[in-house]
């Protein structure tokens, strides 16, 4: 399909406009869509560009909208200090530059991960043995605390006391990890 505006480039942006109940289908190329700036007011999620399908998955804001704001207000640059990758670059390549990027881009990451992993954003699998030692203990403590609450509710105080002792010994082990720098 050819862009209805310039009649030269292929149309990559397709959407339906409804004004006063009157429906119009619009097919534009990206260039003409940019030029007819008034369209972009509607384009929060209405514009669908095939070229931006993948980038769009990573970038929640419409790519066109972002282009526009950056032109007028100056872009807000979110950049990883360690590898110098910007958030914008990340949305283009779809790859992180280093492990710090996960931290730097974390506020954008939650919805992206949810989209990619059917609604999940928190790890539930293996924890590395060596460096994960402290994490293992912390998870164990969390579980035991839950168990402690259950036992107290059921008034099984003798068992609860045992669990409490277990938690204390784990907590002291966790302290050792803390001193060891991990």
């Amino acid at each position, binding site marked *: 399909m050819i862009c209805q505006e310039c009649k030269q480039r292929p149309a990559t942006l397709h959407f339906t406009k409804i004004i006063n109940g009157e429906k119009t289908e619009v097919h534009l190329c990206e260039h003409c869509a940019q030029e007819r700036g008034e369209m972009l007011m509607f384009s929060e999620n209405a514009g669908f560009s095939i070229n931006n399908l993948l980038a769009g998955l990573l970038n929640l804001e419409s790519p066109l909208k972002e282009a526009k704001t950056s032109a007028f207000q100056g872009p807000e640059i979110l950049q990883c200090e360690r590898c110098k990758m910007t958030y914008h670059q990340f949305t283009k390549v779809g790859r992180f*530059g280093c492990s710090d990027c996960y931290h730097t881009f974390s506020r954008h990451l939650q919805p992206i991960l949810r989209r990619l992993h059917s609604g999940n954003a928190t790890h539930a699998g293996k924890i590395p043995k060596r460096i*994960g030692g402290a994490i293992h203990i912390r998870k164990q403590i969390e579980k035991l605390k839950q168990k402690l609450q259950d036992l107290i509710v059921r008034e099984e105080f003798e068992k609860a006391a045992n669990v409490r002792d277990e938690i204390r010994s784990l907590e002291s082990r966790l302290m050792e990890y803390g001193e060891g720098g991990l």
Partner: protein
Amino acid sequence: MSLEKFLNTAVSSWMSQEGPDSDIVLSSRIRLARNIEDFQFPTVFTNEEAQEIVDLFEKTFAYKSYVPFGKFELLKMNELQPIEKRVLVEKHLISPHLAEDCAFGACLLSENEEVSIMINEEDHIRIQCLFPGLQLTEALDVANQLDDWIETHVNYAFDEKRGYLTSCPTNVGTGMRASVMMHLPALVLTQQMNRIIPAINQLGLVVRGTYGEGSEALGNIFQISNQITLGKSEEDIVEDLKSVVQQLIAQERMAREALVKTSNIQLEDRIFRSYGILTNSRIIESKEAAQCLSDVRLGIDLGYIRNVSRSILNELMILMQPGFLQQYAGGALRPSERDVRRATLIRERLKMEERKYQEMEGDEE
């Protein structure tokens, strides 16, 4: 090089050995993606960093024994010939990406070729275990052991909330891709596959052709793998995949039974025609060869063909790929030459089978 000798060096154990349900499941694979905290990801790392990682692996892991895999050999991509790399890709030991685009790519390979650890691919480390038949749990076990072995020497990039950190957000969490290669000729013949694929996709699993993304299902071989890596444990992912695979196995067996019942002679005809093509053709393209091999394999599974071993499909599907053909020929081949070579290779290989079975019968008498 004689065919026998070539086969000895070319065939990995998962191709020739059988595993559970190996009438339908050709192989099970587990891949774990890991990165080292101290280095930037391969997306942006410097050549020096890349070299340092290769050196680290050469120093720490290469030529060391790890029971039960024996010694690991380190293969550097920039030291291999293009044909050698292609052969490794066709054997599924390395990815096309590692072979073609990773200047500092390397691969640690176990002696029995069940395990390969790719270095500096999309992530610093990719552990791969390949087992014959349906053995996902076993493969995961081994992958986990190797993972722990490597972790004693390097600090993994890991985050409590996000899990193992990977270059691509589609792998983060477990970093695990579990996949199973299945031969499903009866489901294709009865046109049920078109209906099944979308259903599988809805379960968070992906169905693809043999050589990964975008490749078509040559020889009715499908690869089924998990899509989601975050929010589920490795064991749960494997269990989910396994249960779908088991259902597919049941469906395929039912479809085979139905085919035998409703169109026995047509099926037998199809199988023996394909056998005839493979044993007689002088020029054969890979697509036709794959289809005929699939038919012959079905014929073996259903008992129509008795004097050919079952592993012939796994083996020839890989050996007839361009890289292998050229290695066997000892040099580069044009596509038209390959088709002639392919036909020769398949004819000779099937003749070996005939001789083997004649000898066996001779012994019995």
